[in-house]
């Protein structure tokens, strides 16, 4: 794990408008994550964990006023154009969601390849063979090599989440952003998924930012960051 921050968020604010009411979710949150680090963001429901993750992943933009900043490897995300932000999401970031969010019409293999299709667009056609091979390897790592042709509906929750992780990794991102990755799984399966994530992180040197409301899950990281009412509170390193 390197001591240089791969991503650095400083004083970011995010307000959502619900009808006529402005609802502030993040109120000047700051967070710095080093390369290869596993940071667990812990917080109650509505504390802004997922919002912070979305902002770090370039899915949304923070408020312009008061001005905050999110820098990925020194590049300011706030200043990126829409196209550059899309490229950032497809190349540098991988998302894993609580409810897997697999595309139900596609097979396991196609779901994993979806990320590569989006990233390479028409160029995918020339890379297809290599991408299929890479997707196969990833699914083999997650023990799903026998389920390539299956649809998500035919898989268990744990298997679906493994497919989602494989999809997030297909483009070899620098950061994996996991939003309650075990929130929809039983403890045993959840732990297995966390083991998989830990293995992937160490083998690929990934930076992992995980949002959870479960303290036991949060403790699997290198550092625990507590988010309270839209502000980063206590940060404590964890010894594994």
């Amino acid at each position, binding site marked *: 794990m390197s001591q240089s921050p791969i991503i650095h968020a400083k004083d970011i604010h995010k307000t959502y408008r619900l009808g006529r009411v402005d609802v502030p979710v993040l109120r000047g949150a700051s967070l710095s994550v080093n390369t290869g680090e596993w940071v667990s963001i812990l917080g109650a429901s509505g504390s802004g964990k997922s919002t912070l993750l*979305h902002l770090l992943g370039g899915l*949304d933009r923070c408020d312009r006023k008061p001005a905050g900043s999110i820098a990925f490897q020194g590049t300011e995300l706030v200043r990126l154009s829409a*196209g550059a932000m*899309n*490229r950032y999401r497809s190349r540098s970031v991988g998302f894993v969601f609580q409810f897997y969010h697999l595309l*139900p019409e596609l097979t396991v293999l196609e779901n994993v390849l*979806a*990320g590569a299709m*989006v990233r390479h667009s028409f160029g995918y056609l020339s890379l297809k063979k290599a991408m299929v091979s890479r997707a196969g390897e990833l699914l083999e790592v997650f023990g799903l090599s026998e389920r390539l042709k299956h649809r998500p509906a035919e898989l268990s929750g744990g298997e679906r989440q493994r497919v989602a992780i494989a999809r997030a990794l297909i483009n070899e991102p620098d950061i994996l952003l996991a939003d309650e990755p075990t929130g929809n799984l039983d403890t045993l399966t959840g732990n297995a998924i966390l083991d998989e994530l830990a293995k992937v992180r160490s083998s690929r040197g990934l930076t992992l930012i995980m949002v959870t409301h479960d303290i036991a899950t949060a403790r699997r990281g290198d550092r625990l960051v507590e988010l309270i009412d839209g502000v980063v509170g206590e940060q404590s390193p964890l010894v594994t």
Partner: protein
Amino acid sequence: MPLLAALAVALCTTMVLVTWSVMGGFLDMLLDSGRNLIGDVAITWPNSGFAYYDELGQMLQDDEMVQAWAPMIETFGLISLPDGRRETVMVKGIQGPSYARVTNYKDTLYWQPLDKPLRTDPHSEDWRLTHHDLWENRYEQGLSLTEPRIDRMGQLVADEPAVVLGIELSGFNIRKAGGWYMPGVPRKFNADGTEEAVDVFMPNSRITLTVLPLDDKGRNIDVTARAFPVANEFRTGLYDLDKNVVLIRLDALQNMLKLHEAQRVIKVDADMPGTELQPESFDQPGEVLTKDPARVTAVIVRAVDGFDAITLKARCREIYAKFEARHQGDVPAQTAIIMSTWEDQNRTMISAVKKETALVLTLFSFISLTAVMLIVVIFWVMVAEKTRDIGVIRALGASKTGIASIWLIYGLCIGLVGSAMGGILSYTIVTNINPIHEWMGNALGITIWDPSVYYFSSIPNQMDAFHAAIVLVGGVLASVVGAALPSLRAANLDPVRALRFE
């Protein structure tokens, strides 16, 4: 739902394409049939006709634009059929060979040998498939409008002029589902209430033709009736002609109408030289014999391929002007003679059909907009259903344009599938429209295409490739347009909200 959208596109393209094929085909048949029936231009002077037509014909023939010409007489008459019925008819006096060079008369002669059965005659029931010699004779007799007269001993006495009737005229021929004819055995009702079967095959029968010769002022000279053998029957496909026209050898009709070449006796009044006297006052010396040339009411002309009817009409007018100059006062003036193309003769009807076709197509195209609306609605619902998936794809890095293009391509695919289905369905319907119509008539009692209304005895069953291309491309474009609005909605979805959508 995508299948529903494709089905909507298919049905709309089918509706427009079938309508366009039938109505457009009807118009094309109407325009094309002119050339087959009267050639490209008709030079006409009705009733009294005009003389020196052979000379005019030769002048026309010498022109590079003219492929062939033929003299013709058109008048009205009455025929008595073998079962005693009398029908008013249009009588056309023609010279078979020259008429065949200008029109497609040879092809319209119905009773001629067939080498192979029609596609619509799977059981080879058509009479024309057997006895080729018999049909070959009938064909030759039809072409020359002449039939040998045989005496009771079976000896050939002489050739006599014959008539060729429209296939629908006698009512003795039964049109089979495949569009071919068989002689039927209709019932004849007598005045005393009894009925009897009439076993008649028209080309073996005789009819009596009655015509009314008129002078140049339109006054009746005499009523002439004469019996003729029927040499053959013709089928143009134009119901009106097939039902109402009798073709007769030109010289026979000229004789009946007093339009033949004849000697005229002129008595010269000694006191008033050059004055023509009435025959009853022929009691003075100074008799002069002169020849009145034969006359016809029309000369029809066919253009060499590559020249259109309008150009030929203008050239015919120039030629006629020279012809008139040679016979000043003896032939109708160039300014008075009627010179017309088929389209001129049927301008009102052709114009009406063109407008009707355009109107129906416009209406159906508007109705087809419902397909676009249906696609909008279906895609709108699909975008709503796929909101979360759209969020996932945005999270994977897809741009707004990328999301929009996914839906547009989806619309394009639905358009392609729908249009392809519509194209196949339309082709199947159009090419089989006559058997389908026949079946509807037999099974359901529905007759949409009444030949007496629509002019042709069969429904046009050809699909124009260009029209098909326009409609099918239109179907694809309509699908893409229908998908455009939902695509924009999908593209503008907030990915965070989309991911949280339930």
